[in-house]
């Protein structure tokens, strides 16, 4: 029996048809993986189901009955709950407060705190979430916050759970925990839709796979047993895509960037402890680790946004210190973790965004005056070389899709040929073909003899891209190796602090004594 049936759904936004006559159905106790590139329409389709958008045409049926879902409250009343990629939690409040918000059990005019606590605790126990309802959300890890979001849905008696890119920020073990939890939810009768790019998880957990491309339904009856990752990628993009894109460096040269004994304490907590590593010319050093283990502090120290308390950074034997401006002048290009808050001015045109960080370069300005023609030419060059999809260079940055915004930021960083590229989460929330392209550009850049520091919460990415990698746990480097030395599961253990590499190791051939 189908719990959800969406028939002939159409939705247009100015200039584009986001969803084009799509039929979608979900059975009871079924897990569906909704695949597609950014712009394919999968998030829009689910937003229609959740009441955020209204379809131009088409009907939605819930358990066979036609329903109108005009706002998320209507969807939640039916039992349809959505967990978004960007969590909607109040960090200052406790888990309990975040879960019951809007649906508080009442005793007269007061909130019945005891009943709320009892209900939430029983949910936690029933599904084995291992959370203390009185903890503040700000103290939780990303994986735990996600569990709170799922708890919110369960508290509202979700019969249908929609998850938008749930594994984007989880470590391998946390991904396993999540998938196990989803399986036990399915056993309890919940139907689940996972919007994702992750082909591997799709193959692991989905009962059925639905693929959208350019707003149209490509197929909706593929089962993992009958397909593989390459085939799914082909369905999503419409052409062959190279899945195994390891490209080890052919020509690593001398040591370029050297970081020694870097330490940093914030608010009394030690965030970085004796960080030591070096990167050669023509080499990519990956930094793996679950978010919150010092990556942000490491990135800020290496781009001048924060001053480390101790230690030194040298580039080609020249000591580098100072503010962001100083680092940029000294040859550091930065692609920040969060492109919208740290990388772009959304309400300014692409030309203004393209020269961010380059305002002292001679091609941008002379004697304090902007060189408009050169700036336009540079922007167009970036757009062309990095295949940024946009009608022209003067649209606002806001008008670009996430993937194209990221491509612009990468173009801006790579086009000026700095010595070092510090890049964080380069393909977060980006679709498969843009990901392929961005990774390709990073490899090209490295092959010109540049040094790249790649920080990513996605172990697959670090594993695939790095010539060497380190694992950051609790502010320390707990592993330094080549990707081929360990399996991903083993590296996952280091990421979670289960293992730690002993500091005594043979420098010459890089073997490590592993301490369990």
């Amino acid at each position, binding site marked *: 029996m189908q719990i959800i049936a969406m028939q002939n759904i159409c939705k247009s936004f100015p200039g584009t048809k986001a969803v084009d006559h799509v039929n979608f159905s979900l059975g009871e106790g079924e897990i569906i993986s909704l695949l597609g590139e950014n712009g394919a329409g999968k998030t829009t389709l689910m937003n229609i189901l959740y009441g955020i958008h209204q379809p131009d045409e088409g009907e939605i049926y819930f358990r066979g009955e036609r329903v109108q879902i005009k706002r998320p409250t209507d969807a939640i009343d039916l039992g349809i709950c959505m967990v978004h990629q960007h969590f909607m939690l109040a960090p200052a409040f406790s888990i309990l407060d975040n879960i019951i918000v809007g649906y508080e059990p009442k005793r007269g005019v007061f909130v019945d705190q005891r009943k709320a606590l009892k209900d939430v605790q029983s949910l936690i126990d029933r599904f084995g979430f291992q959370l203390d309802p009185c903890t503040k959300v700000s103290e939780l890890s990303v994986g735990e916050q996600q569990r709170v979001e799922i708890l919110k849905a369960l508290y509202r008696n979700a019969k249908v759970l929609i998850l938008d890119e749930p594994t984007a920020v989880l470590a391998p073990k946390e991904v396993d925990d999540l998938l196990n939890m989803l399986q036990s939810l399915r056993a309890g009768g919940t139907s689940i839709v996972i919007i994702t790019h992750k082909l591997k998880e799709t193959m692991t957990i989905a009962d059925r796979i639905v693929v959208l491309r350019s707003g149209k339904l490509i197929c909706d009856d593929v089962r993992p047993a009958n397909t593989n990752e390459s085939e799914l990628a082909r369905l999503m993009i419409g052409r062959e895509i190279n899945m195994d894109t390891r490209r080890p460096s052919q020509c690593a040269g001398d040591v370029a960037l050297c970081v020694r004994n870097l330490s940093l304490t914030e608010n009394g907590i030690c965030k970085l402890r004796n960080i030591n590593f070096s990167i050669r010319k023509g080499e990519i050093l990956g930094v793996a680790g679950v978010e919150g283990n010092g990556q942000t502090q490491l990135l800020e120290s290496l781009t001048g946004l924060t001053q480390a308390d101790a230690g030194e950074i040298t580039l080609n034997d020249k000591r580098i210190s100072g503010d962001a401006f100083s680092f940029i002048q000294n040859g550091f290009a930065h692609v920040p973790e969060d492109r919208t808050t740290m990388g772009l001015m*959304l309400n300014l045109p692409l030309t203004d965004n393209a020269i*961010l960080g380059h305002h002292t370069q001679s091609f941008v300005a002379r004697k304090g*005056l902007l060189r408009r023609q050169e700036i336009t030419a540079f922007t167009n060059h970036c757009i062309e070389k990095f295949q940024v999809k946009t009608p022209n260079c003067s649209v606002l940055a806001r*008008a670009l899709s996430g993937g194209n915004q990221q491509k612009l930021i990468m173009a801006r960083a790579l086009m000026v040929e700095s010595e070092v590229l510090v890049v964080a989460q380069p393909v977060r929330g980006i679709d498969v073909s843009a990901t392929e392209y961005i990774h390709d550009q990073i490899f090209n850049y490295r092959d010109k003899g540049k040094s790249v520091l790649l920080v990513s919460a996605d172990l697959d990415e670090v594993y695939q891209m790095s010539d060497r990698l380190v694992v950051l746990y609790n502010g320390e480097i707990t592993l330094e190796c080549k990707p081929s030395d360990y399996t991903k599961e083993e590296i996952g253990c280091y990421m979670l602090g289960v293992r730690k590499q002993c500091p005594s190791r043979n420098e010459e051939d890089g073997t490590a004594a592993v301490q369990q």
Partner: protein
Amino acid sequence: MRALNKFKISVLSLLAALVIVAIVIWISGYSPIDIYARIFKGAFGSKMSIALIFSEATPLMFSGLAFAIAFKARIINVGVESQMIMGALVGAIAGAYIHGLPHMVHATLTLLLAGMSGMLLGFFICFLKVRFHAQEVVICIMMNSILLYVGSYLANGPLKAAGAGVAQTETIMETAKLTKLIPKSQLTTGFLIGAAIAIALAFILERTVLGYKIRVAGNNRIAGETYGIQATKLYYITFMLSGFIAAIGGSVLTQGVIMRFSDGAVAGYGFRGISVAALAMYNPLGVIFSSSLFGILNAGSQAVNRTTTIPYEFVDVIQVMVVVFISAPQIIQAVEKFFGDRLKKALPKRLTAAKPDQELPGA
């Protein structure tokens, strides 16, 4: 927002404000069409009234520019009133007590001294904001009161003109007065100075690195700082520039219209500049037009006041309503959608085809 979009919101906000005030007029028992017609006739009726349009526009243009340039850096300088008072005061002092200078030198020097006083005031407010993380809006509101009372005290006491019956300072010297553009009117070269400043600001914002940095800091401070653009320095520069311009505006009032500083002289020109800036969507060149527009309303409403019992303050209501609508463009967009949808259904399809450069939501 794209330029055309901004213009559309600007025009619709003004229309919406006019409609609301029309309703108020109608409730008061008058015909809105009659009243608006009188405003128009009153404003354009004679050469002197046209001069009045632009002389009314002049102080509004200065305070509008001051507010607009600050807003480009996301600074809300509601202290333009205080900076104008400061400028008017210093202008009156420099104009009255500096002797022996030829006209051009004296007038220019007075303007510059006034400007610098406003600049110092702007610096001080910014210092409090940066050093103590204070909200500039709160500081500015306090400053407005402080300057109002300081000005009042000086005009009533130490600087009071000998033998004057009301609170006012000595008349400024002839050499400090601004040249009139139209004889016997209040329109002076001040208007041209304001227009020149507007053009200079537009140039700085769009064509210079400084203007670029101001726009970056105003649009996304964090992104700017990630790439080496320090917001704090820009706040100082912008606040000082804003204070400078507002103070010159105050001095233009002194040197062009009142010829002295009198208690309550600036009287709201600072605040109304906020409306002017809002209507222009904070674009310096647009301020020239929006201040002229309000000049028309002000000049015309004075005519209405002579012939009816409607107080000319209702023009203030129009100006305030404009600020409300500009600040909440969603109201205008909702109204536009409401009427637009109905229009679309009535018009043939090809006239309402989607435009390719409109914004797309994130997928």
